[in-house]
């Protein structure tokens, strides 16, 4: 039996067209041996949740540089929960002030990575915390 491969989705919710970071991350996940679905900019939370389910990903990485993360990130978590897909891990990144971290954790975002984080840190986090076999 082949080993389960980790599938991740990198998505940019909302009105934010700055996707250099998201692309770098998508590339870095690929180099880490994951299968990465990149959905491009200007996605609604509903589009992201629907795509994550269609693609059966283990992880959704949200990138937001516009300041709307407190509105957009929790919506993705809630929509996944509504569709019975709360076993999909959601993490976030971008320009996110320290004081928002706890609110996002409370809303179900499992980790937050801000500028300056090394790519290795993120990949190691995923390898440690995302276990595709154990999902329901």
């Amino acid at each position, binding site marked *: 039996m082949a080993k389960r491969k980790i599938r991740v989705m990198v998505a940019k919710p909302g009105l934010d067209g700055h996707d250099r970071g998201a692309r770098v991350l998508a590339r870095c996940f690929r180099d880490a041996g994951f299968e*990465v679905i990149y959905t491009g900019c200007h996605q609604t939370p509903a589009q992201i949740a629907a795509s994550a389910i*269609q*693609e059966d990903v283990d992880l959704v990485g949200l990138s937001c540089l516009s300041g709307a993360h407190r509105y957009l990130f929790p919506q993705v978590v809630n929509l996944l929960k509504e569709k019975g897909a709360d076993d999909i891990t959601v993490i976030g990144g971008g320009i996110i002030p320290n004081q928002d971290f706890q609110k996002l954790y409370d809303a179900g975002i499992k980790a937050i990575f801000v500028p300056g984080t090394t790519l290795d840190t993120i990949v190691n986090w995923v390898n440690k915390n995302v276990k595709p076999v154990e999902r329901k």
Partner: protein
Amino acid sequence: MERGDKIKAGDVRTASRLIRDIEDSIPEAKATIKHIFPYTGKAQVVGITGSPGAGKSTIVDGLIETSRKKEQTVGVLAVDPTSPFTGGATLGDRIRMQRHSEDIGVFIRSLATRGSLGGLSKAVGDAIHVMDAMGKDVIFVETVGTGQQEVEIIHYAHTVIVVLVPGMGDEIQAIKAGIMEIADIFVINKADRDGAQKLQRELMTMIEMSHIPPGGWKPPVLTIRNSFKPEEFEQDLRTLSAKVREHYDFLISSDLIGDRQKRKRLHELNEAIRFSILEPVLEMLVKTGELDSMVEKLVKKESDPASLAEEIAKKYLQGCF
């Protein structure tokens, strides 16, 4: 069986997980496929192939739109390459199709090739079955960006669209074997660029020169203009969509669909035989350590691959020899 019933009811989450299990070679997936197999064979499977950046995903997006306007339900399998170095993959086809992601009549699933060489993934055949059993009317299968030789799509699709763009080479390319032979429909994309008319002439000359039996299908050469001018693009897509339908109707009325079905089933059987016979034997050879010692023998030139293969066949496939 509950899982198969959920697939038949069109449950996306179950279907997507099943496709994952097929990709990951989870043994239980085979049982579900056996269960849903009798419910397959109803969808029209359309293959879209062509070189990287030719516009396959954008054309699939346009075809989804025209199909939905006809109230057909749609499945999409979009294949992108797996890295031979890391095993990772960037699956970026669905970027072009995201306007359909919330439409419950559309199910888009990206697949990585995971080492397959024919332009598709090993899982694609069963993934088509899954979407077919879900009741999708039409299933678009987008291959990886292909070169000349990746023609495996003909084993799965009723209709193959080959997407070309101007400026990719001279007329000799058009008479080469391989991908240029498999088209049921040629599409020249980005047709407002220089060289589109020349390419169209060359293709038409090539088609005139090929031996099409009386009453056979003559592949049309369609053009698609700039996708940034929505009206022109949509108009060209409607023409393409109508041709796709026409080809399917032709297969049915000429009874050629039976031949395609047979070709498809033969390929599936070949794959299943490989899966049921070759893989267990290889697994056994690994487990017993025989594989290692055989490689060792080859390195030392004590034997040769053909003799060793015969030895394996004699030992594990009694009755054949």
